[in-house]
């Protein structure tokens, strides 16, 4: 009886060892596949979905830890779920990247327009400010306080425009456009105050 029990135990152990060994290769392949899929778009994921990437990386790490612990069954069972997480992340990154590129393209188009108009606006205002600064009086509808405000606002406009140009040159197109819009709005107000917008 004792010999039979021992033989059964030995057989069970042998079967278990064979089973584990036969899952090793599929487990290794599954981890390699998940890592390879993630590597294809990791750089974009870091740029467009950094937080989401951290979550997926945690899942991949858990899978690798199971592999290192030789828990091949856990790897084989868990790999499909992690693979789905990677696919979902890839889709999310593609969407965010496309959105970001569309925003950049729109900003660059708007910048082209602003960068043509702003220097012309500055030139027109500068000319009038220079002439009025030589004037013994000011035109009707513009008093000294108003002209002082115009000059102060104009200096702010020029500073804003310079900053916007610098931002654009540094690759910050969306920020540059936002600042340039502000400068243009300031310029429109100055032109109105000078009676030059009709």
């Amino acid at each position: 009886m004792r010999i039979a029990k021992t033989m059964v135990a030995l057989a069970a152990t042998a079967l278990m060892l064979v089973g584990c060994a036969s899952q090793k290769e599929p487990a290794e392949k599954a981890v390699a596949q998940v890592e390879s899929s993630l590597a294809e778009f990791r750089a974009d994921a870091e740029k467009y979905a950094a937080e989401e990437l951290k979550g997926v990386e945690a899942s991949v790490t858990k899978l690798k830890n199971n592999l290192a612990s030789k828990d091949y069954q856990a790897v084989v069972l868990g790999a499909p779920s992690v693979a789905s997480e990677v696919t979902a992340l890839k889709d999310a990154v593609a969407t965010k990247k496309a959105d970001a590129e569309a925003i950049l393209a729109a900003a660059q188009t708007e910048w082209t327009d602003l960068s043509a108009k702003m220097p012309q606006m500055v030139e027109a205002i500068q000319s009038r400010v220079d002439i009025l600064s030589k004037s013994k009086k000011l035109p009707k509808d513009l008093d000294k306080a108003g002209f002082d405000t115009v000059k102060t606002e104009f200096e702010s406009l020029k500073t804003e425009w310079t900053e916007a140009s610098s931002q654009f040159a540094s690759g910050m197109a969306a920020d540059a456009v936002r600042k340039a819009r502000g400068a243009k709005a300031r310029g429109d107000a100055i032109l109105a105050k000078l009676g030059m917008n009709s």
Partner: protein
Amino acid sequence: MSTENPYAQYHVVKKGDTLSKIAEEYYGDKMLYPKIFEANKDVLQDPNKIKPGQKLRIP
């Protein structure tokens, strides 16, 4: 061919206008009329001779 500045201001000469009157209207100072003459030398040969209908740039 020069590109017109879209923010430049223009004045269409009316009957009775002079460059001095125009300078007083836009600058508050009639003595600044040479500024208008200089800006419009392509259409004006004499600052005392302007014609109704002329479109003058007011710098």
